[in-house]
């Protein structure tokens, strides 16, 4: 019979008309990200960083700027302290190659995703901001964080020992 195919299709759509929608209203309800989510607020542990600039060399876009000075007692095993450590996240594509490059596990991806700014300059993460930011490291390329990274709350901030290696 002509039109039967149309009716069959309508029987599918009408079933959905009475179901709960599977979408959520964003600013009110937020979906949970996965532990490995690669996002904002790079986590940087200054004590571990030796200023080797592996991350800057590995970055495909060259958006990490590092300036170091000699300081024998600055950190574990290193001879350099950092004056400048800027990440221009306006151009960052969150590929996490810098995290992969870091030989001392000093740099981690973050798990946040809301960091809008009115200016391009506001998107550059400066060294002080990295020092003072809440440390919520993502589990990407750091499998030891797999369980912890799923349990972050607003207040979470891990110290270097908790973050592990």
């Amino acid at each position, binding site marked *: 019979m*002509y*039109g*039967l*195919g*149309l009716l*069959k*299709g309508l*029987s*599918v*759509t009408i079933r959905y008309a009475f179901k709960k929608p*599977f979408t959520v209203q964003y600013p009110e309800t937020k979906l949970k*990200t*996965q*532990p*490995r*989510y*690669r*996002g904002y607020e790079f986590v940087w542990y200054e004590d571990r960083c030796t200023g080797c600039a592996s991350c800057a060399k*590995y970055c*495909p876009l060259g958006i990490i700027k590092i300036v170091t000075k000699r300081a024998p007692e600055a950190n574990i095993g290193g001879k350099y302290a950092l004056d400048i450590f800027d990440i221009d996240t306006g151009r960052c*594509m*969150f*590929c*996490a*190659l810098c995290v*992969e*490059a870091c030989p001392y596990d000093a740099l981690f*991806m973050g798990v946040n995703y809301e960091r809008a700014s009115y200016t391009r300059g506001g998107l550059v993460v400066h060294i002080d901001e990295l020092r003072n930011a809440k440390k919520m490291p*993502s*589990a*990407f*390329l750091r*499998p030891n964080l*797999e369980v912890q990274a799923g349990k972050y709350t607003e207040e979470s901030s891990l110290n270097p020992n908790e973050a592990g290696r």
Partner: protein
Amino acid sequence: MPIKTSPIIVNIGPHHPSTHGVFRMRVMFDGENIIDLEPVFGYLHRGTEKLAEERTYAQIITLTDRLDYLASMSNNLAYVVSVEKLLGVKAPERAMYIRVIMAELMRIASHLIGLGSFLNDLGALATPWMYMFREREKILDLCEMVCGARITYSYMRVGGVSMDLPPEFMGALRQFCDDFPHRIDEYEKLLRENEILISRTKGVAVLSAETAKNNSLSGPVLRASGVNWDLRKSDPYEIYDRLDFEVPIGQTGDTYDRFLVRLEELRQSLKIINQCVKDMPIGETRLKLPALIRPPKGDAYGHVEAPKGELGFYIVSDGTIAPYRLKIRAPSFINLTALREMTVGYKLADLIVVFGSIDVNMGEVDR
């Protein structure tokens, strides 16, 4: 007195919602009938091939994400397969299984978008599109679980994958595999016998096997014309020679067949994923390679069956940390060359539908 008529040239695009990006068609119309068509592209050119010449082999992976952005994992796979060919290494067993699972998930995601936007162009506004996005969303969640990103994955590495699967992934994947066959049945019930769909697509833009081969098409567009050519079968890479699956073939090569082939490929991809989940070995996922790879002098061409067709990377190495030349054989670009043969003689309304049925991605066409 007869009315004098003359053909008129109309530019469709570049900013037209049904061109799936920025693509322009210069079409010559006689009334409503198409008498000539000239595709114009290059609006999204980013110089990927040239950029690759000054990036290291690891950094190029981030560039491949941006080719066919609906199936980034397949692009990653094609690139790393080519570099591994150049180096003469093979990824560990477990890594190969993971790669195949991810590539097939991407095939499902890409075909869902392809079908959804094709039906959107046809006039079935939003309903099938939303249903298919719902399923794709689950695949993106799986990918986020594995590599922390939803579109630009950069997950695979030369000699394996960047990270092993997380512990909760297998359960989530199994749940998806159990749920998805019902969804495909639903799509079929919704669309397969729909009289409007059939009258708009059956017998429209018939592409003969001969023309398809002469234009060196690949992927579902070629297979819908009745040519049995799938790189997973004819030149198996990774572990595809161990897997049992069928390659769906169309009968006539019209628009309806292209729709059916894509729908059937969803099922076959699911079959492959189920087999991989069953046989997945335990072990290493990444070879120990230096951070800066220096392949020996020479060249290599590696190709995979991406959702849209044969995706190939031709790499020339001069022994340094960056390739001397990287050529990308993008399936969407080559599939577009048959657009003129397919549409001349049909009407304007058919043009949009036929273009949707080729399922191109402009990120890949312009590179």
